[in-house]
């Protein structure tokens, strides 16, 4: 449990700004409550402070930071006003200066420290400033020190050797690998420490202006000292570190919705949601005290857990911007830090369980960090604890998913496709990162879960209301605002009921043109949910292939496809062959590491390298096609030869089955590559249909990557360039082939209208949206 913080200030603006500053240093779930201002003006309110204490206390108590005068008096009075009189014993009123104290308290509390420690660290927050501004104490004379090559340099970085420059230094020393490199802080007269240990370097307490000595012995000692001195001369490659570089912020520039600058919510999945906020968070992992095996086995368990975490950290680093990735670099170094690893391994050899040994080693180091005077270094305690917890989680094995209360609005930084695909019944989802075309958003739309993208800083239980179609969002809405959201929800429900009542009828425009409305599904369950669908316009088969050590066999595939066909009750199923690669790597395919996987080996391009994969899938499809109307669709086709090769593979599968060509078998391609759209007439003689994947077509045509929030707005499927590509496909197809749209845009009424006007005669949408898309078609009049 985390200690909560309460900020008491005369000024709401001051308090909010201080909290924003603290959250920059300690991102995450830390409960920080503000009690500031009275009636929109300056002042403090003991009743509000008591309420804030109640809200911030998650059981581990609260540390209260105050500005001046009545803030202190009101905070003291608030302790007499608490609902739960015992709670007063869990509250510490901290005499620290507000801003410095809050920043330190947030970092220490986020690291899991107890309230007394948090308060003590915060109260010491002035130390860094004092030592900076007071005349430096005379350094003791340098020791005779170590032998070997030596050099001396001054640290100019604004915050001294805080995490990032220290990590850079440690990484360099480890790369050199050979000489024994040591450092000492000549200004404070510290002892020599290993330069290859991040935690050891941090204990040097290096502040701006301190003189550091470096010494190296052994092979390559000269080069090592030279390299360290050169790095120091470059201010450890930190932009803010150069002497005379002006005032540089320690904080990374805003890079997106998580930057702390409130960005407007971006609509992700339509629907109105009203519910209490609930953060998706994982419980602290259990620490097992009993070894499961011999020391050698426990060592192996720890190594495996660290490997797993290394993978997680790299994946997380790859998902964020370069500025934030530097933090993960520090975490990677900590994972291999001898200061953590050696005591842990020694304890394991002495018969301690791996989890207990690792927990003790990380907690000792974290406490040592937290005790340092400099708040930036003390903040490294949080890094050590974070890495410590991650490894303990990996050691504990897969954890049960946290129970999300039904009807809540889930607030999460992001969701993995698996999480988005397995969410329980929530009212809606607010994501901190991603874009409308991220996999999480696609899956939420498919499941009919309203969602928006917004940077939200709310506590659990705060009422949220939003409209996932427009992006409007209200935190703790006033009654009249809430009423408007509820009214809108009712309207939508009524429209939905009206749509469902006519779902089974064919959708025909007002001037009599029938348009097929299909469903995009990934399983038989999805197909069952697609009430009123004329067909499955897209059966994604990746779900069968992901998260398993080997590819599914022909029989397994046949059973899965047959289940979907049966759920559709004899209506047509459009099976897309495996669209792996890029974002969806498979363990049993040795996919090469690609700099740009979306322009790499994926879709039908895989078939050239792994022909058996396609052959098996086609054989399973052919078997099903003998019993039910089936269409086979090849993804990511760029040139005619790819289609002709795939058709040959299909002929071979038909021959292998030996029952002749299934009478209702149809063949088509996905149109995602702009070049394929522009030369569609080459493909038309060789197929029955073309299905436009507007998600990928849009991202390729506009060179705007899906899932990158910074360019998400560019990826507009109604961009004139994209519409021309759709038009080109429709004109090439004429009456000879059906043109479908199976991208997300097919469910957008204004987009659907444009597509149908251009000649699209099939719209395939998420199962939950089939009925409403049919209503959209019924409202169209192509003569207008």
């Amino acid at each position, binding site marked *: 449990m985390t200690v909560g913080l309460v900020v008491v200030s005369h000024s709401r603006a001051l308090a909010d700004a201080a909290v924003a500053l603290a959250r920059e240093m300690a991102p995450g779930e830390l409960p920080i409550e503000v009690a500031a201002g009275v009636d929109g003006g300056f002042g*403090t309110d003991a009743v509000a402070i008591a309420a804030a204490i109640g809200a911030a206390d998650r059981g581990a108590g609260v540390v209260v930071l105050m500005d001046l005068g009545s803030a202190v*008096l009101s905070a003291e*009075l608030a302790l*007499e006003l608490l609902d739960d009189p015992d709670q007063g014993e869990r509250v510490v009123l901290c005499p620290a200066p507000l801003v410095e104290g809050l920043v330190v308290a947030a970092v220490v509390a986020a690291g899991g420290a107890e309230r007394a420690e948090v308060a003590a660290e915060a109260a010491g927050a002035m130390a860094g400033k004092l030592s900076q501004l007071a005349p430096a104490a005379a350094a003791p004379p340098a020791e005779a020190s170590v032998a070997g090559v030596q050099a001396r340099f001054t640290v100019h970085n604004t915050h001294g050797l805080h995490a990032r420059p220290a990590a850079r230094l440690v990484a360099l020393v480890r790369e050199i690998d050979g000489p024994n490199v040591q450092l000492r802080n000549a200004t404070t007269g510290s002892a020599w420490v290993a330069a290859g240990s991040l935690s050891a370097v941090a204990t040097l307490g290096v502040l701006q202006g301190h003189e550091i000595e470096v010494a190296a012995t052994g092979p390559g000692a000269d080069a090592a000292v030279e390299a360290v001195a050169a790095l120091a001369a470059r201010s450890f490659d930190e932009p803010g570190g150069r002497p005379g570089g002006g005032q540089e912020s320690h904080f990374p520039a805003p890079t997106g919705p998580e930057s702390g600058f409130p960005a407007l919510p971006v609509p992700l999945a339509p629907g109105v949601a009203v519910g209490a906020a609930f953060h998706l968070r994982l419980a602290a992992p259990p620490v097992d005290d009993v070894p499961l095996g011999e020391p050698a086995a426990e060592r192996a368990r720890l190594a495996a857990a660290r490997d797993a975490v290394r993978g997680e950290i790299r994946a997380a680093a790859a998902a964020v911007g370069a500025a934030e990735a530097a933090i993960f670099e520090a975490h990677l170094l900590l994972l291999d830090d001898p200061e953590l690893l050696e005591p842990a391994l020694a304890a394991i050899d002495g018969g301690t369980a791996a989890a207990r040994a690792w927990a003790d080693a990380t907690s000792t180091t974290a406490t040592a960090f937290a005790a340092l005077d400099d708040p930036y270094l003390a903040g490294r305690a949080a890094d050590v604890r974070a890495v410590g917890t991650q490894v303990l989680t990996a050691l504990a094995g897969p954890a049960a998913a946290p129970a999300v209360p039904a009807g809540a609005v889930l607030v999460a930084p992001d969701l993995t496709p698996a999480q988005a695909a397995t969410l329980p019944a929530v009212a809606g989802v607010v994501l901190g990162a991603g874009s409308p075309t991220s996999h999480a958003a696609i899956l939420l739309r498919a499941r009919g879960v309203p969602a928006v993208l917004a940077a939200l800083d709310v506590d659990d239980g705060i009422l949220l209301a939003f409209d996932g179609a427009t992006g409007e969002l209200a935190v703790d809405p006033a009654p009249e605002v809430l009423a408007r959201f509820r009214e809108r929800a009712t309207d939508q429900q009524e429209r939905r009921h009206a749509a469902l009542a006519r779902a089974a009828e064919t959708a025909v425009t007002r001037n009599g043109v029938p348009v097929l409305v299909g469903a995009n599904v990934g399983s038989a369950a999805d197909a069952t949910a697609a009430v009123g669908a004329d067909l499955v316009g897209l059966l994604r088969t990746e779900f069968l292939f992901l998260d398993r050590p080997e590819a599914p066999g022909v029989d397994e595939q046949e059973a899965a496809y047959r289940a979907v066909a049966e759920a559709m009750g004899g209506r047509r199923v459009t099976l897309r062959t495996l669209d792996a690669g890029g974002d969806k790597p498979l363990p049993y395919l040795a996919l090469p590491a690609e700099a740009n996987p979306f322009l790499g080996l994926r879709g039908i391009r895989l078939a050239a390298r792994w022909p058996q994969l396609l052959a098996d899938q086609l054989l399973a499809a052919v078997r099903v096609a003998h019993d039910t109307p089936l269409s086979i669709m090849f993804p990511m086709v760029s040139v005619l030869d790819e289609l002709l090769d795939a058709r040959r593979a299909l002929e071979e599968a038909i021959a292998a089955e030996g029952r002749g060509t299934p009478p209702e078998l149809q063949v088509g391609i996905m149109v995602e590559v702009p070049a394929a759209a522009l030369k569609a007439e080459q493909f038309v003689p060789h197929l029955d249909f073309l299905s436009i994947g507007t998600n990928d077509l849009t991202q390729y045509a506009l060179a705007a990557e899906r899932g990158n929030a910074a360019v998400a707005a560019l990826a507009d499927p109604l961009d004139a360039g994209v519409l021309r590509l759709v038009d080109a496909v429709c004109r090439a197809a004429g009456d000879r082939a059906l043109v479908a749209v199976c991208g997300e845009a097919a469910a957008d009424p204004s987009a659907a209208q444009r597509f149908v006007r251009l000649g699209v005669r099939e719209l395939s949408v998420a199962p939950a949206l089939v009925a409403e898309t049919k209503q959209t078609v019924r409202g169209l009049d192509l003569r207008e």
Partner: protein
Amino acid sequence: MGVGAADLRRWVGAFADTVVANEQLLTSLDSAIGDADHGGNMARGMKAVVAKLDADPPATPAALLKQVGMTLISTVGGASGPLYGTFFLRMAQSVGDADELDTAGVGAALRAGVAGVVARGKAEAGDKTMYDALAPAVDAYDAALGGGELAEALRAAADAAATGRDATTPLQARKGRASYLGERSVGHQDPGATSATFLIETAAATLPAP
């Protein structure tokens, strides 16, 4: 005849009227040595108190005093909020569930309130605070209590408060924001002692049953 909820309501109403009428005075005193918010803060708080009491009239002295204290805590904003709020809350505790207070009961309640102000503000005599008016007031009240008359005791308390208030002028502030001014706070009458004197003077004017 003792002092009941209706009497206390009259006192609080008169204190509110006086504070509102003297808002400018209190503010100008505070602008000399503080942050010029005492008049506005107290007027806002006491208006809220009166509105609250009118909307939901408490039946007993304790309930009334508690409601006054809680309202001040939430609406004044400055240091006077927790200080006056504590004053009334401690009075409420002191009167317990009595329906009426006798002269000794009023004295005990006032002393409890002043003790609360000391505990909250850690002020001592001569710090140039509201305590410099309240402390001599309760002492004078207790001294006059021998006579047994509430009116006399309150009159003595009000006079002592006014004397104490006037005596703050030459003092150097040692508490609150005025203390930042150091010697520059000398020569100005303390705004807190001024409003505290209104509190006792209005008690003297209203509490003896008419």
